């Protein structure tokens, strides 16, 4: 997996940073909109705390926007890397201190409001995934539990459940594929064009 951004991505990032630095409010909205879902997902998985993930994401964008305005980002084409690094640092801070807000240095930055719409829709997606998992057989649920929750390898799972490695892998693969496909099907329906985003406010 290459860490270098694709040319198109690099150009888009440079353009976005440039527009933000020139005071384009729409560009800030666009940045938040473009990255918020991934940032929230990363924070959620790292912290296993959905509420904290939301707060961390806000802190991330506050920090990123502040850095862009101040011209602290030396390589705009690596904007994604900057966002990822900021996310990781704030997650680590959270895990260490369990604090929700950064220091007051960020208070002068308008708090970017994360779009709550995806969060509201997440309840539907939550139900969908839960229902999908509930349909799995007991053994399948055990496989998934041991894999995703316990972090056990397929070899260990197969041994504990007294099934073959291939069977364990096939069953897990099937379940994961089902969950992801169903989830994506719902997510596709809920995607809104950025222009219709009702909740983002341009920072003042």
């Amino acid at each position, binding site marked *: 997996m290459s860490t270098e951004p694709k040319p198109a991505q690099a150009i888009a990032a440079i353009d976005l940073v440039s527009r933000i630095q020139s005071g384009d409010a729409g560009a800030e909205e666009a940045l938040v909109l473009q990255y918020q879902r991934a940032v929230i997902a990363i924070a959620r998985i790292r912290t296993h705390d959905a509420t904290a993930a939301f707060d961390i994401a806000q802190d991330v964008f506050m920090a990123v926007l502040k850095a862009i305005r101040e011209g602290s980002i030396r390589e705009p084409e690596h904007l994604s890397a900057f966002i990822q690094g900021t996310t990781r640092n704030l997650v680590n801070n959270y895990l260490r201190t369990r604090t929700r807000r950064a220091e007051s240095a960020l208070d002068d930055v308008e708090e970017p409001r994360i779009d709550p719409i995806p969060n509201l829709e997440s309840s539907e997606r939550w139900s969908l995934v839960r229902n999908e998992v509930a349909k799995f057989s007991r053994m399948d649920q055990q496989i998934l539990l041991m894999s*995703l*929750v316990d*972090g056990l390898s397929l070899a260990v799972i197969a041994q504990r459940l007294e099934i073959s490695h291939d069977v364990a892998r096939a069953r897990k693969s099937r379940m994961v594929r089902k969950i992801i496909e169903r989830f994506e099907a719902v997510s596709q329906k809920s995607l809104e064009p950025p222009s219709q985003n009702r909740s983002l406010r341009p920072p003042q």
Partner: protein
Amino acid sequence: MREIMDCEQGTTSEVLEGYVAGTLDAASADRLELHLLECPHCVSAIEALEIAREDLASRAHEIRTRSTNSRLFDFRFWVPALAAALILLVVGGRLLSRRDRPSTVARVSPAPEVPKSPEPVVKPETQQPTAPAQPESANGTNAVPNPTKSKPETVSPKGEQSVAPTHPPTEVAQQPPSTPAQQEISKSAEPKVSTKANRLTDEQALELFRLSDVRVAPAYTAAGSAAGTKPGKATQQAGVSESGQIAGNTLFQQGMISYVEKDYVRAAELLDLAANAGKHPPEVDFYLGVCRLINGHPKDAKEPLQRVIADGKSSQVPAAHLYLAKAYMQEGILAEAESELQLAAIRPGTVKAEATALLARLRALRKSMSDSGTAPLP
């Protein structure tokens, strides 16, 4: 390794699973996070996996508890045990059908009250079978795959069973060696409840199993009680000849004594004789049907119960409908079972509430079978 659909970089699901599970190394996690910021498809995938992880984590205890308790009933025990049960069922059925030899009828242990086919809880050959005998009791713990709601450790691979069709335990029968019986198994094992083409899910099989659970009906307590008193008016009004009436009453009383003593096999034998002694009151048929149902012979239980219903005069008619529904459920004939439950729920009385509740559950089960694509049972 399977690649995530639409991911341009071909991220595999294993990588995403490892990330969600927290088993990915730091460098790989960082690389993946960088990728996530550019790939909405992978973001969607990990969102889904994270929700699944959280859901499973919240139910981890339940999932583990059920799996732990079910180890006694993994398929390596269950399949031979069920095969043995089927042998007993066939042999017992054949022995009971020999009505001219009551004194030599073997005391056969009733087969466990399980769904007709063992297959609902056994996965197809293409998959490793799940721990098939993992029925749950209402409180979420595992129970024996028979209506007895205690003593889960009753199934052994040798086929000996101390299972009871209902709460009262029954004796363990000697398994008679029988080649013809074994041949019968291949026929009798053909399930009505489930075939490869219309396999129930574990949950559906469990629910069907619970629905078909048979509770012992209260013993006959009218004037002609099993305690040895004179037969009641119903018997007299049946127009039975005196000698036949006396013989029938005696057998009925003896049968009810066995019934009260929870010897349902003996009770069935005696009640069967009473039913064949001539005209008899509907109570004979009713308890005969109940005993046969308890003993694991739903097919044989239907006829006497249907006689009770046809008679129409007995106060046991609603209960007969209920037990007939149980017989149909044990045979997997759910449409008929539903009809019988509807009839049982018509008349006000003690049966109405139970029948109504069962009817709702049966309808829900049939709907779930329809929704899950399980082929409708006969």
